[in-house]
């Protein structure tokens, strides 16, 4: 395949999205669907701007991000610890892995009813959904990362006199880091799904709540706008925060061909 320069590729991607917007606008102009069901991109933008002006948007964005920060920190911490234990104990690994793989087949929204029953309409329920959505991914990726540590690193650590108690923090975790960040990245995405799903039902602020409100008010523009914002924030953090960290680690660990 022909390789394009980084800058050239970016230009194509930008062009693709402009085309998408243009297509949307054209479709709208054809008036095939009534505009209360199918607003134009301009109307969506306008609605978002109104929400922002009325002070409804920012509190919701920050509420969702805050919930994710707290919930996902808990999930990542828990997943890391469980993953390290799994990575170091074969039997526990076999048991927990099958359990987690089973849990992962559950759509994240399926945790919402049980969280409602357990925690009612409190924020703790949202944290619960975030944790349950993402902890398995982090734990499995961590244990995989540990199981795939090059044996050479472990042997080097032992010949250099590393005492057993220092192995997890000094050697095993850093050596497994490439696998761990991949898991954290995936966990973040799943947690994000869970957070917005939970907010749909049991919140009075948050991106999910604004989606729900849009539906209540039959405001398609708001629903579409918030959906796009949700994608945007999910993407921003996934690509630009975790993606950046992942790339840097993979380069440093010598796992990428190009530097």
């Amino acid at each position, binding site marked *: 395949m022909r390789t394009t320069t980084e800058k050239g590729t970016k230009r194509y991607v930008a062009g693709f999205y402009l085309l998408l917007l243009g297509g949307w606008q054209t479709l709208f102009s054809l008036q095939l669907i009534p505009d209360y069901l199918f607003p134009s991109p301009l109307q969506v933008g306008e609605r978002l701007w109104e929400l922002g002006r009325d002070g409804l948007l920012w509190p919701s964005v920050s509420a969702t991000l805050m919930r994710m920060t707290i919930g996902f920190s808990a999930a990542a911490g828990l997943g890391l610890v469980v993953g390290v234990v799994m990575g170091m104990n074969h039997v526990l690994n076999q048991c927990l892995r099958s359990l987690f793989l089973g849990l992962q087949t559950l759509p994240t929204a399926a945790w919402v009813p049980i969280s409602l029953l357990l925690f009612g309409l409190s924020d703790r329920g949202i944290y619960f959904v975030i944790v349950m959505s993402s902890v398995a991914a982090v734990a499995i990726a961590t244990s995989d990362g540990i199981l795939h540590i090059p044996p050479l*690193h472990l042997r*080097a650590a032992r010949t250099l006199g590393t005492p057993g108690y220092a192995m997890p923090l000094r050697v095993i975790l850093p050596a497994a880091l490439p696998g761990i960040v991949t898991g954290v990245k995936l966990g973040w995405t799943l947690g994000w799904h869970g957070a917005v799903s939970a907010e749909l039902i049991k919140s009075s602020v948050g991106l999910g709540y604004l989606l729900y409100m849009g539906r209540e008010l039959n405001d398609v523009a708001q629903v579409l706008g918030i959906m796009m914002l949700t994608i945007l924030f999910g993407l921003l953090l996934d690509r630009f925060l975790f993606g950046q960290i992942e790339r840097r680690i993979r380069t*440093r660990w010598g796992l990428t061909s190009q530097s």
Partner: protein
Amino acid sequence: MQPPAAPDHPPSAEPAPAPPGVKLRLANVSKVFRNNEQTIEALAPVSLEIREGEFVVLFGPSGCGKSTLLNLIAGFDAPTTGEITLEGRRVRRPGNDRLMMFQEHALFPWLNVLDNVTYGLRWLPNFRFHPLRRRRRAMELLKLVRLDEFAHASIHELSGGMKQRAALARALAPDPKLLLIDEPFPALDALVRAKLYGELQDILVRTRKTIVSVTHDSREAACLGDRVVVFTKRPGRIKAEIKVDMPRPRDINAAAVTAYAAQIAAQLEEEPRENDDGKRD
């Protein structure tokens, strides 16, 4: 060309009481690997004594058990029979008194060059709570291998030869009683290797380390070893020992090295072709 007359040195067979100055002693050390159904005799009983400051090269065909023996000395694995003692103490587990340098550099990618070298110092009582002392010692070693300018570089920024030199600095930093080297510089091109042989000898002359190294390159063996121990095919047993009597540093391309290399390689070719009765290699 006539090979230089090397002093005849009969293979040591039964363990004798250790004379003074013996650093490492192998007494009837053998290794048998047992899988579910298969048993592989990797190493026949081997007895060997290595003196303080000596550079001994284990030389033999692929699969004869050289790495196995090195792993036993390092303590990664326990011998099936026999006993390994370092300064009279029995070897039981890996430890930083017998540092191993691996075929690949095995540097930790999550640490920079300097931190890789200080890493092994962390576990020594003298350095445990003295980060500055660790740093000073590591910088000395990095100067020795001429990497002091790269102290803060990441591992992936080093060339292959630089990585091996960093690994050497890391292995020398804790001042091990014994340095074990499995195939010192395998994945490097000939020019870089020739240069590294010169440097390695230079460093060894300065540090006077006791070293056991493994190779299947006869030229490398002749260039580096004070004594070359030639092994038979699997199960490896000691076939001959050749003393290399040449001043250091030796140039890998020197005629004398070539002559010794030929003599070492000849030991292998004399080996009668046995029936390998279907054992896989």
